[in-house]
């Protein structure tokens, strides 16, 4: 089962320069809430920013990760 720290590390490893804050929303290990800041988001629409994060987890979203609520920002 994924945990918040693992999700944070995977986002930060997969998206160059990303900083993520992740919390387990319900304490149940399947609903997470993440705020991600990354230079890679600059110039991209919100949809594209969220897709970059979802892509880190592929089919796990909707599977073991039932929900990953996102807020994305580009720095500065």
């Amino acid at each position, binding site marked *: 089962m994924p945990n918040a720290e693992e999700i944070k590390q995977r986002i930060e490893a997969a998206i160059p320069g990303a900083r993520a804050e992740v919390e387990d929303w319900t304490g149940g290990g399947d609903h997470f809430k993440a705020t991600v800041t990354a230079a890679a988001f600059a110039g991209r629409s*919100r*949809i594209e920013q*969220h*897709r970059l994060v*979802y892509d880190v987890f592929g*089919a796990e*979203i*909707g599977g073991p990760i039932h*929900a*990953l*609520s*996102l*807020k994305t920002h580009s720095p500065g």
Partner: protein
Amino acid sequence: MSDTEQSTEIRDAIAQAISEHDTILFMKGTPDAPACGFSARTVAALQSLQAPFAAVDVLPDPRIREELSAISQWPTIPQLFVKGELVGGCDIVMEMHESGELAQTLGVEGDAMEPADEAEALAPGLTQIENRLG
């Protein structure tokens, strides 16, 4: 009919529903009885703006969700489409609602005081598909 043919048929029906409705929400459950908090919040945002929308319940057949995500390249439900374009899921819709962008995207006044009337019924194309899959 083979599984592949059925999946293609579902995908075509979804694409048609998206193209036929200016505002269409794919959700878990129905606007009157949402089956997931994220779907419920998205419906509430649309209704607070009195925005008319079509709604499709993805729960009756898992293939609806699979084919929808294949079309939209978006993994989660709900998914809101306006004029054929994916606007986003619950997080993006709520952010846009807070900033006023949602009313703008939907082409409605942002300061509606009354709750919306009931949402439009299920997209007809998909209803037919679901019936055939029975």
